[in-house]
């Protein structure tokens, strides 16, 4: 008998094993749902699969009676737009400041303590100020995401920029590069794939802030819908929405991963991920 550490499941066994916990979860849900529904047929907490199906159909296929929109899509579009803007702006800020702070010692001395402090403030506690300064519209939602995500990206990129082998910067100087040229041709191109990594890492937080912002003031969006229908405990809507958000989170991550692989072949070769 080999050691446990040396036993590797075959490909198909592995897939089956991976599916197992999901099946178990489903069965547990079904059992719980049936038990509660047997008690109270109107129970909303753990709806039967048929109710979930109805809700999905209603939200994803039929136009809403009130607005005529198909809610799932308008919500998704609204949320993704906010997320994209928030994360995009954070990435831009992160790149500019991360590169600047990581490359220019004077800037680092001046701004690094500020950025570190900012990254420690829990953005949710600052909501009232954000509202008053940025209003309640789309802007404040995007700002909340930026506020929650940008300091992290700045610090990560600053760190990465400082980790670039000093040899490379010296080498560039021996090729006659000015500070600007070093940033343009050496630092930024090497940090772009790491920016994508940082963005991927911060997507979870971005979703969180998005949902928090939409829960507080909005007229559409995935977070808005979840917190609105929570008012009447419509778990038949909440659960599919949560699954949908999870799926979207997975897809955005996948997309970024593929994009990175396409755009930065050298980076992934370097890290031994094949091509």
């Amino acid at each position, binding site marked *: 008998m080999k050691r446990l550490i040396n036993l590797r499941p075959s490909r198909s066994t592995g897939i089956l094993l991976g599916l197992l916990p999901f099946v178990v979860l489903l069965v547990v849900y079904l059992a719980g749902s049936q038990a509660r529904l047997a008690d109270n047929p109107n129970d909303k907490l753990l709806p039967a699969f048929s109710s979930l199906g109805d809700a999905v159909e209603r939200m994803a296929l039929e136009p809403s009676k009130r607005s005529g929109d198909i809610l799932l899509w308008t919500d998704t579009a609204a949320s993704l737009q906010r997320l994209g803007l928030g994360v995009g702006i954070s990435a831009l800020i992160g790149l500019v400041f991360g590169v600047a702070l990581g490359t220019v010692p004077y800037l680092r001395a001046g701004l690094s303590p500020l950025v570190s402090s900012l990254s420690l403030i829990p953005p949710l506690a600052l909501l*009232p100020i954000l*509202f008053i300064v940025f*209003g309640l519209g789309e802007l404040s939602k995007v700002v909340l995401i930026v506020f929650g995500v940008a300091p992290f990206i700045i610090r990560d990129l600053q760190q990465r920029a400082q980790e670039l082998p000093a040899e490379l910067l010296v080498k560039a100087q021996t090729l006659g590069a000015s500070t600007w040229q070093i940033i343009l041709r050496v630092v930024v191109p090497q940090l772009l794939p790491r920016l994508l990594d940082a963005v991927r890492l911060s997507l979870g937080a971005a979703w969180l802030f998005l949902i928090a912002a939409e829960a507080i*003031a909005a*007229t559409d969006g995935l977070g808005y819908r979840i917190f609105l229908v929570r008012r*009447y405990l419509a778990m038949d809507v909440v659960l599919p929405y949560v699954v949908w958000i999870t799926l979207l989170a997975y897809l955005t991550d996948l997309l970024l991963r593929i994009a990175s692989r396409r755009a930065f072949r050298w980076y992934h070769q370097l890290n031994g991920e094949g091509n």
Partner: protein
Amino acid sequence: AKDKFRVAWSIYVGWMPWGYGEQAGIVKKWGDKYGIDIEVVQINDYIESINQYTAGAFDACVMTNMDALTIPAAGGVDSTALIVGDFSNGNDGIVLKDKSTLADIKGQSVNLVELSVSHYLLARALDSIGASEQDLTVVNTSDADMVAAYASPDVTAVVTWNPLLSEILAMPNANKVFDSSRIPGEIIDMLVVNSDTLKANPKLGKALTGAWFEIMATMSKDDAAGIAARTEMAKASGTDMAGYDAQLATTKMFYNAADAVAFTQSADLVQTMAHVAKFSFDHGLLGEGAADAGFIGMAFPGGKTLGDGANTKLRFDATYMQLAADGKL
């Protein structure tokens, strides 16, 4: 029958007595009297407390008449309004920035807690000027952030309740253009108990009702004990005595059990609940199974009913309050 019960409450002018009752030992005293143990739990988030009640984590919970219909009753939890504590008499209001008549609200974005009594108030206000929700945009806004929201430049209209309302009215250029005193008796704050639990444990009903009206008696007086009680409640809700009294002034408290009984038995209540049911149905709050506003049956004192009798889930019951009024607890 069990002998341990859990009651959930959240911070609101008309519900502060529960916190005081717990703290001052009045609830415990009445529990002891009936040989039961009542745990009173404060929950910040009002909706969360109702959800918890609906899911079965609590035996009783404070809520408004509308939420009682749309959450537990629509969720199939047969619920009884054991105590009708007060109705809002100016405690909920519509505020416009820089504008002074209700008609100016048309075309604006209105910030409110969507699907709450504020939303209902807005609907009733619009009715009164022959307008409808199509004429404006409703922006769902969390109650905790309402004051901050109003302070931001792009918010020009809000519907909210006290103490947020008075905070907002204290700001420059804020004009109250409509409030709940124009629809008296329609926004009701109640203690709702699970009907099955109540049926199996009449002691629970008696203990809670007894405790409540003892607190009412204490706090309604302007003697030292009354002032002390109200001061406690003011502190617990994050304001001071003056602020709390101001909120009480726009709340029609039923300090007297007989008043509460009379209100519950009046025909107006049926009329109100018909309004509420229609509003709820129009906004999809009764669930997808609902064919019309009468989908959920309601029972009132004296055998009056509303809606589908076969699906009665919300009951207004004055018997325990009557016992209190009669001094039989």
